C-alpha cells in the first residue's frame, strides 16, 4: 500500500486527511494523481492545482518519481509558517 496524506486547506477541501492506495494502482506520482481524481472526480480541481506541493517520503518532489509499496506521499498547499 501507498499512504497518501493531505494537509491544511487541501484536507478541508477534499474532506479527507489521508487514504491508502494499492501500489499496483499508482506506479508514479502522476499515476497516483490520476487515480485519485478518478475515484473522486470532485478532487480534480484541488489535486491538480498548480499551487499544490507534493512530498514523497518527507522530501519535496518536483518530477514524476516512481512509487512503491510503503511509500508516503503528501499533498499540501504552499507553506505559511514562521
Amino acid at each position, binding site marked *: 500500500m501507498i499512504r497518501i496524506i493531505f494537509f491544511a486547506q487541501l484536507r478541508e477541501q477534499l474532506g479527507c486527511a489521508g487514504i491508502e492506495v494499492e501500489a499496483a494502482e499508482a506506479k508514479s506520482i502522476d499515476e497516483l494523481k490520476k487515480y485519485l481524481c478518478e475515484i473522486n472526480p470532485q478532487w480534480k480541481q484541488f489535486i491538480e492545482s498548480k499551487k499544490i506541493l507534493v512530498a514523497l517520503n518527507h522530501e519535496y518532489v518536483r518530477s514524476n518519481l516512481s512509487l512503491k509499496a510503503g511509500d508516503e506521499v503528501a499533498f499540501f*498547499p504552499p*507553506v505559511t*509558517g514562521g
Partner: protein
Amino acid sequence: MPFSISIQKDDFDVGNEYASLVMNDTHAGAVVFFVGRVREMNQSRRVSGLSLEYYSGMTERVLEQILESAKQRWDLLSVRIIHRVGRLQLMDQIVFVGVTSKHREQAFQAAEFLMDFLKTQAPFWKKEITEEGEIWVEANQKDKVASERW
C-alpha cells in the same frame, strides 16, 4: 546542544534560550535572534489567534536541512530553532531562531537565511481566527522573493 530544533505546543522563554545558546562559549562574540509573534492585524483582518498545523516527520527534516545549509555557508557556533504548533493567542510567541557566531555579519545573515527558508520551505500552515471566521493564511510572495536572494 549547540544545534537544535524543536517543534512544540509549549511556549518558550527567550531569556532561557539565549542563556543556553551562549553558555560557557568564549568565542560567541555575536548573538542574533528573531522572535515571531501573533499580531493583531494581518492584511487588514483583525486576528485573535492562530491555529498552526505541521507535517510530523517532514517538518523536522526540512528544518534540519535548512540548518545544515546555514552551517555550510557561515561559521556558526550554535543555532536554536523553535516553532510552536497548535492553538495560539494574540501576542503569543510563534517562532524563535537564535544564532551565535564569532562575528555579527555572519550571525545576522544566518538568522535571516534561516527565517527566509523556514517561511518558504518548512511545512507549517497557519489558520487565522478572525472576526469573520477561520481563514487559512495565503503564502506570501514577499517571503518567496526573500528566500530567492540567497
